């Protein structure tokens, strides 16, 4: 709270946080209402995932692990939509699953929605295996025997009878795998317990805040691409030529980033001015 005798700098440093909340609220809302549509450059990290899917021949097995829950939906849901659209467009055999129990319903809706939009049939063109307990144990079990890790899919159909899983006995038969992770188990677990032992190519997707932590995996070639946060999703949407929620959200993200930068600069200016006043 402001008190009598406070200098301007002191007052500004103790500004009511509701003013900051209002500023961030407006920076999010206004660009959503009045989009600008600034160009989005594609990074080599996102292109790595796109190019690999693009290089897969028709009918290749693509495994997408939707390892997040509704809390990370704004960032990872658009990534999943863009990846599924791309995979379906390439006529890949899409296997989806989740290692997060709280994300099961959301993942099912997501896969069903995109498959319906792309005219794909459950069991023949794609499948959603659902969730199985055990975290990384599920990955190892899938590497050993997929039918044992998931005896039935989310709808209760035996996996051994699904046409899409014909010839897919374990992770060794997967052409490409992407884990969209918001924590643990996620991208790192898929690399450590999956790719490293069962030798399939993999890429990753994660929230913006997690992305810097996954760069060592990317730079060492342990994953061949990384879609980071809403920005990564927007880049992928641009690459497949189907702009969605991620591209729409980039203006809002731009404005909030700049607002935070402005706040940080202001707070430092007031801080140094106060320090100078106090000698």
């Amino acid at each position, binding site marked *: 709270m402001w008190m009598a005798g406070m200098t301007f700098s002191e007052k500004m440093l103790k500004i009511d946080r509701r003013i900051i909340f209002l500023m961030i609220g407006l920076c999010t809302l206004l660009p959503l209402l009045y989009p600008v549509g600034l160009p989005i450059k594609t990074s080599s990290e996102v292109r790595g995932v796109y190019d690999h899917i693009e290089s897969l021949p028709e009918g290749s097995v693509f495994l997408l692990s939707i390892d997040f829950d*509704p809390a990370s939906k704004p960032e990872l849901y658009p990534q999943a939509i863009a990846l599924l659209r791309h995979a379906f467009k390439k006529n890949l055999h899409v296997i989806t699953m989740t290692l997060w129990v709280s994300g099961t319903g959301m993942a099912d809706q997501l896969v069903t929605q995109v498959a319906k939009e792309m005219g794909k049939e459950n069991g023949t063109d794609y499948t959603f295996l659902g969730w199985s307990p055990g975290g990384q144990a599920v990955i190892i079990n899938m590497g050993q025997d997929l039918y044992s890790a998931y005896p039935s899919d989310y709808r209760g159909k035996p996996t051994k009878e699904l046409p899409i899983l014909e010839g897919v006995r374990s992770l060794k038969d997967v052409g490409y795998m992407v884990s969209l992770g918001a924590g643990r188990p996620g991208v790192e677990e898929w690399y450590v317990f999956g790719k490293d032992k069962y030798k399939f190519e993999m890429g990753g997707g994660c929230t913006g805040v997690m992305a810097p*932590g996954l760069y060592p995996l990317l730079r060492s070639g342990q994953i061949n691409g990384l879609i980071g946060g809403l*920005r990564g999703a927007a880049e992928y949407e641009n690459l497949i030529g189907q702009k969605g929620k991620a591209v729409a959200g980039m203006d809002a993200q731009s404005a909030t980033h700049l607002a935070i930068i402005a706040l940080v600069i202001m707070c430092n200016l007031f801080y140094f001015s106060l320090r100078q006043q106090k000698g």
Partner: protein
Amino acid sequence: MIFLRRQLPLLITLVTGLLFAAQYYVPHPASEQMLTSATKWLQIVGGFALILGVTSLFHQHAVKIRRQEAGWGYSLVLYVGMLGTIAVGLWTNGKESVEGTMTAFGWIYNYMMVPLQGTMFAILAFFIASAAYRSFRAKSREAAVLLVAAVIVMMGRVPLGEYLIPLSGDVSSWILNVLNSSVRRAILIGVSLGAVALSFKIIFGVERSYLGGGKE
């Protein structure tokens, strides 16, 4: 009794630890079969761990409600929410939709859990902005370096930043790919070596805290 409480668990840890460390390097079908069986067991144990977790949560909050400790009302909300969800889940056979029609369980998931989790995540942006304003100050040389790097990365990760300062994208990419990667890799190597050392200590019975602190 000491054998059952101390020596047997240590023996099991030693044998299984060495066995599964060696298994990774032995691609023989028998070794692979052993891993398949073990991971299946792990999955089953994982399922039971869930029951254990829920039971422990119920117990903790039951104590809070009984003693009417500070915030016991929230524990009551947890009880009502959890029991209600379990009951509805069992009633609908765990299905969120049946032939395209949303069940009560699906309704709870879609109209309660999804928006609640989304809200929790969304308010982070407001708190981060407020916290950044109050605490992100260049009080030392190290803090100034961190501040400059953060500003560059924040600029370079959004189209408006790249539009205003075209170089920010490349500099941000360099910070993430070179500086960030190398430092994180160093930390990872340190952590991994520590994990290997700890694993050896557990396997050979030097580290025994997992056995509990009960008197022999």
